[in-house]
């Protein structure tokens, strides 16, 4: 038998227009804890989805060897049969079912299709004991905390006779005690039950603490694998591996012409709309000047979108407090339309589900936020609307057959240009751009960067949220680093680097 329980050989996975994984190799030794680290979008989750059969055999190139044998998974069931279980960041538990029911979901303890509740509860209790869960098996999932829910997921994995357990950001939503508890459990399961683990995490300190090997992925390729006690696995070393890429000239040049402060937010506090005790934005203050492009960097879930949307007419969050000052005057946005009327625009990160009316044509999408400007006594001037659409199609170089083309039939880049047109036409002074280049190809990205530069040159203030660090570094005059709802760093263009940004995030995470 091979020393490696798992070998993933030259895995390549492409999505339309994007190479998500490019010849990735991953070797996991039997009985170890193997960490997988990398930036957002580096390809970690895609790799794990390939491994667990979410992307079936034939959908990717390369081989998966389990104990030296090639596997061809068609779906998750196939991989689970061989003992590979993945626990996703978003837990897959059903809130209104009990712990026991969830543990055996899809794997029910039944005789002749009739569930034996005695057996279910007995076996559930056993598994729960193993993972240190002291509740009764008939407690509903919604009544226990996230930490315990995570334990239920692990118990569920154990019920499937797991050999290789994959955890995607298991501690992202947990507090310190729960995190420590979970990590201890993993080490325990690893040592005493011989379960091999792959853990994906942004928290470098916990990775250092528990893993035997660390594989770093960047831009869809394996960079290196560091071995504990042999290689240097210091924070700096890992960060360098994660971000150390060459920055080529992917960003159009811009002469910054920065004026006075145009928009300022002070002491901004926002609570979660679903859980009003959970603070999402914690006392954030920032400002942006005329003609300035300010970036917000941070990991997924840092609260960047929540911050932007809560400012944009309270489109997100509850119990919002803080001050907004625009052009030296305090303003309040109680609704989105008020924010728009005051010259603020927010470009959503999800253009398909929240940016466009996909079944409508380009013309109607462009005019949607600015209908007031082309109507009189509530009657839309369709001639004017047509002129506007034609103007923006030309100005932003939207590739389409006519302006009557439905936006659902446009490419991602052109769809984004339509949404940007909508906001430019609304006539804002301050634009909050949330992931303006997500999921579009390199050429269209360059065009969108040029549009952003053009807007800044016209004296507008741009706030740009992006998970792509090179983009933030290449485009912004100033960068705020956000982590767990707080501003944990403010960097000038000169001092900003990927290492610095990551450093800010990791230092603040470790402090907690």
């Amino acid at each position, binding site marked *: 038998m091979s020393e490696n329980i798992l070998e993933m050989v030259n895995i390549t996975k492409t999505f339309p227009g994007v190479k998500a994984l490019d010849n990735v190799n991953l070797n996991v030794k039997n009985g170890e804890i193997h960490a997988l680290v990398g930036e957002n979008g580096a390809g970690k989750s895609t790799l794990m989805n390939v491994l667990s059969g979410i992307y079936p055999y034939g959908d990717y190139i390369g081989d998966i060897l389990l104990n030296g044998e090639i596997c061809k998974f068609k779906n998750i069931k196939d991989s689970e049969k061989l003992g590979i279980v993945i626990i996703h960041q978003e837990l897959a538990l059903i809130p209104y079912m009990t712990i026991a029911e969830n543990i055996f979901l899809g794997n029910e303890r039944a005789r002749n299709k009739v569930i034996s509740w005695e057996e279910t509860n007995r076996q559930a209790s056993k598994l729960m004991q193993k993972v240190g869960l002291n509740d009764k098996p008939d407690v509903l999932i919604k009544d226990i905390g996230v930490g315990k829910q995570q334990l239920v997921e692990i118990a569920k994995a154990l019920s499937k006779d797991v050999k290789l357990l994959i955890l995607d950001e298991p501690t992202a939503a947990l507090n310190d005690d729960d995190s420590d508890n979970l990590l201890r459990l993993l080490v325990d399961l690893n040592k005493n039950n011989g379960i091999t683990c792959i853990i994906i995490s942004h928290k470098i300190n916990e990775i250092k603490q528990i893993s035997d090997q660390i594989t770093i992925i960047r831009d869809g390729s394996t960079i290196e694998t560091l071995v504990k006690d042999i290689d240097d696995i210091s924070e700096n070393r890992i960060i360098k591996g994660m971000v150390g890429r060459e920055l080529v000239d992917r960003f159009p040049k811009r002469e910054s012409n920065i004026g006075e402060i145009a928009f300022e937010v002070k002491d901004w506090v926002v609570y979660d709309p679903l859980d009003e005790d959970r603070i999402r934005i914690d006392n954030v203050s920032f400002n942006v000047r005329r003609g300035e492009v300010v970036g917000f960097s941070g990991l997924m879930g840092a609260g960047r979108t929540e911050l932007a949307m809560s400012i*944009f*007419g309270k*489109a997100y969050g509850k119990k919002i407090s803080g001050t907004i000052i625009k052009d030296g005057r305090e303003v309040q946005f109680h*609704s*989105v*339309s008020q*924010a*728009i*009327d005051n010259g603020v625009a*927010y470009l*959503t990160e999800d253009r398909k*589900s*929240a*940016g*466009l*009316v*996909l*079944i*409508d044509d380009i013309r*109607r999408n462009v005019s*949607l*936020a600015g*209908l*007031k400007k082309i*109507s009189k006594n*509530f*009657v*839309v001037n*369709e*001639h004017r609307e*047509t002129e506007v659409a034609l103007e923006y199609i030309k100005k932003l170089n939207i590739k389409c057959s006519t302006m009557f083309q439905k936006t659902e*039939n446009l490419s991602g880049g052109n769809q984004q240009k339509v949404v940007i047109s*909508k906001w430019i036409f*609304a006539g804002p002074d301050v634009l909050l751009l949330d992931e303006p280049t997500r999921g579009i190809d390199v050429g269209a990205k360059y065009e969108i960067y040029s549009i952003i530069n053009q807007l800044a040159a016209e004296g507008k203030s741009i706030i740009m949220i992006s998970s792509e660090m090179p983009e933030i570094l290449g485009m912004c005059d100033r960068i705020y680093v956000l982590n767990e709802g707080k501003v944990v760093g403010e960097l000038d263009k000169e001092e900003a680097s990927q290492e610095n940004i990551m450093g800010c995030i990791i230092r603040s995470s470790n402090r907690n």
Partner: protein
Amino acid sequence: MGKLQTLFRNGYDKARGIVKNNMRQYAMLFALITIMIIFQILTDGVLLKPRNVSKLIYQNSYILILAIGMVLLIISGGNIDLSVGSIVAFVSASSALFAVVMGIPPVIAMVLSLIFGVLAGMWQGFWIAYVNIPSFIVTLAGMLVFRGLNNLILNGETVALPELYVKLASGVVPDFIGGPDSNLHLVTIMVGLLLSAIYLFTMLWSRLRKKRNGFEVPRTYVFILKTVAVVAIINLFMYWLALDDGLPNVLILLTVLFGVYSFITIKTVPGRHVYALGGNAKAAALSGIKTKRVLFWIYANMGLLAAIAGIVFAGRLNAAAPTAGKGFELDAIAACFIGGASASGGVGTVMGAIIGAFIMGILNNGMSIMGLSIFWQDIIKGLVLLGAVAFDVYSKSRAKKAT
């Protein structure tokens, strides 16, 4: 020979292109005409006799009015209102209360009843838009509540209404030109000619304006053909009515409502907001559209239209009755879906809802003339509804694959 063939070929391709591109728009009209022809044959020509054409209008007027309000709800994202039948009853009952029991002049009683309808709509709009209760549940509750209120007011009895109600629902425009003895209702003919002139004028004007602004306009012969066809249909229709009793009052009401609501949905900002809300509620909200307010007002509007339908129906019945309006909601909803509205929202037109309502109406009327049992009528109507929507879904999925 070869040349002629290419010519035919080109013409055929072009025609196919036009039909294909406007498939959904024309499909419903085509279905309406087909059903008309089928029943014209099956009823031995009774269907399109002047008497029966008038009857079709009288019989379906209230469903048409309800369908206009309902289609707005469906466009806004698959919302429906199950309570409209009960509101129809509630409004006719309150009319009886005001006009008969309290002795208020009929016109004022009508206005008060309309206000009652709007309040009923606002009540439901409040729960749906601001408390986030699914429309299905709120209007199901409304269906019970307003039916109960109707019975409470009428005490379970039937009350006869003043003359004005009957005039509105079943009366015709007086023929002050031809006089009461004329075989042909001359005012109706005049109205037809007047409408033709207005139509001709607006079409020409819009064409000129488009040309001046440098927009593409249809070819001259297409324009002439279309205009001639519309003018012919208007005049033929009016002539037909003139052969019977003449222009029904309720048809004027219907035309005004149709015009106003078509204008609102196509040309105005609030209309756009309804479509955007149904097309993508999140995107609409993030574009500054006050989605809750829109939802609230379209329900208030549904209340208003249900009240108008209630007054018309009470007039048609010549009474306020406890069972008035039962099942109207389903006819109105079916009319919208047959008329091409999409259950997922964002798609639909007032015109489509009207066509849908007429398809339902002709099915009802035609099958009754044929003496088909009421059981079979329900089965056939149900299958037509299912077939229409299935066809729509199918053609949509075809269109998606094509791109």
